[in-house]
């Protein structure tokens, strides 16, 4: 039952959209990129809402009440934490607000991964399985099978760039995913306050998420890595256009100086 709901609400719309874009463009990598942009545009209201929450947290942390609390309980971490959580509650601020866009992406990531893998069927058993997920009223079947090649990579396989003479494949996309995820995390994270529990959590996430995403891109089909990179770049552009990119956070040392 749950599987059917997931398939109906997430997989099938994604898969059919991807195939429809591919049937028009004839390039699956471009289809993934365009689809990612489309998804980011749809989730833009969530991004705006998260930004407002982040701004509210920043304003709260600049308030006199917050500053006084930091001084009063600086030697009592437990009490300080309790008071911080109380203040968060009173002012309706979510300390994990900067993590939300990334967390919301998880069902999208999983859904897109499944959609990409289904579309890139490489054996008959997978291809016949794909039939059951295509809307009967669409004509995307005429575009099958998907041409999974793009530049040097096969979108259905983990990406590696092989240079003649070197017996080692370079995971270019995985590196790009790691770098763009790191930059995106840094840009959308508000300047940290020393000793702030939420800030420590956010710092952990900003370190962990790029590594996780890089690992996923290294291990999974290249099509998913393309989604990660596109999503990260679009997010950076979104924040930059809204004037919300914290460029001062790009390098840790420069960020700490600003906080001081």
């Amino acid at each position, binding site marked *: 039952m749950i599987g059917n709901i997931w398939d109906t609400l997430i997989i099938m719309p994604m898969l059919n959209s991807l195939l429809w874009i591919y049937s028009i463009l004839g390039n699956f990598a471009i289809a993934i990129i365009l689809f990612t942009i489309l998804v980011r545009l749809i989730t833009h209201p969530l991004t705006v809402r998260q930004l407002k929450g982040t701004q509210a947290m920043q304003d709260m942390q600049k308030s006199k009440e917050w500053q006084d609390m930091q001084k009063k309980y600086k030697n009592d971490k437990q009490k300080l934490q309790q008071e911080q959580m109380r203040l968060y509650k009173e002012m309706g601020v979510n300390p994990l607000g900067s993590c939300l866009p990334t967390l919301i992406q998880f069902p999208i990531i999983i859904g897109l991964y499944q959609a990409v893998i289904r579309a890139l069927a490489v054996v008959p058993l997978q291809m*016949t*399985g794909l039939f*059951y997920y295509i809307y009967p009223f669409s004509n995307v079947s005429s575009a099958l099978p998907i041409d999974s090649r793009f530049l040097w990579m096969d979108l259905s396989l983990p990406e590696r760039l092989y240079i003649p003479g070197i017996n080692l494949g370079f995971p270019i996309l995985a590196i790009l995913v790691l770098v763009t995820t790191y930059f995106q995390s840094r840009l959308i994270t508000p300047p940290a306050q020393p000793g702030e529990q939420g800030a420590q959590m956010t710092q952990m996430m900003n370190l962990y998420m790029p590594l996780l995403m890089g690992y996923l891109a290294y291990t999974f089909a290249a099509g998913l890595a393309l989604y990660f990179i596109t999503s990260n770049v679009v997010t950076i552009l979104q924040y930059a256009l809204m004037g919300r990119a914290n460029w001062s956070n790009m390098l840790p040392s420069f960020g700490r100086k600003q906080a001081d």
Partner: protein
Amino acid sequence: MRKRKLLLLAIIFGSLFISSCAGGLGTAQNWPGVAADLENGLVYLAYGSHVYFIDLETGREVGRFPAEKDKRNFFAPPALTGDGSQLIFGDSAGILYSLDASQYRSEPNWTFPSNVTAGSGNGSNGNDSTSNRYIAGSLIQGDRIFAPALNGHLYALNQEGEQVWEFNQFNSDNSELWASPAIDDDGVLYLPSMDHLIYAIDSNSGELLWKSAESLGGAIAGTPALNDQSELFAGNLGSLMVRVDTSTGGGVSNGFPANGWIWSGPAYHEGILYYGDMTGAFYAVDTATGEQVWTFSVDGSQPGSGSSGILEGISPQEKIGIAGTPLVVGEAVYFVSENSKFFALDRNNGVPLRGWPVEVSGNLYTGPVQAGELILIAQVGTDDLLSAYDLEGKKIWSFRPLE
């Protein structure tokens, strides 16, 4: 703080879960390939890590290749040479093997290409790649072996495994070969391709005689059927059974529509074309008049009735597809559907014979294979990989690999 730790743990476990689904598609599973050898009393089953040699009378394993599991995967249907001495099959790394068919031996007579280390899992390009695997079985005619490799190469070999010619003049770089070619009495090969075209090739020289002028409406994954009036019939993923005139260089005349993808090649018998589609509809069409003689649906619904509402149209369809080529024996036509049913219909009116359909464990994709008075049904997703039934639907034996 506790909530944050729980959240972090949830993320870690979630990422581990996601990563457990990781990996490329190089070792993807497929449905089995089956061949029967009445002379040697054996059945050959290609599935997963082995090609199994099975006693036709008892269903017991006689041997397997390779003896120990390694990186190789086998799904393409094996084929016997004309003299019954060699068993020819390909693996997922693009290597073709010849084994002694009459007496099981663990070492191949030869491999093609001959310069690749068998068992390494590496294909002819040196890398573990999905691009040059064998999905379709070889066609054997006389002393020639015609092996369609996934990556758009049709190889013609002699019985010593030496290449006679190679054909790769396909329409695009994305021309994959998922089906065996058909051959007519004049020695012309008709090779269907996933690039939506059919290629006619001289089997002696490998010369391209003609190819479809334009897309036939969809990728073609099944071996075409030929009649004695220079007509070729092939189903495609555009839900169409196309009719091609082979005497006029591939001219296309009115085909026969279906409700869904036609995955396999049709069966042609006495002027009637029998085929199924992925919606579970089965058709008998008179090729002379173009009229449907009868239709049948796996789930008992009226073929072509379509979904009953918007909700059904946007939800995954029930998996009742017919993916294998039907088998005509006497007055009956046999086929299987994905939802574990083995059907026998009266081929004159499409009515199920008494006592049919038969429930078979697992999912069924491979078309029924006749072995004398037995019909062999390959199974997926169950411990039994193969079952043998008599023509009345009584199970005679099931094969389960030895541990």
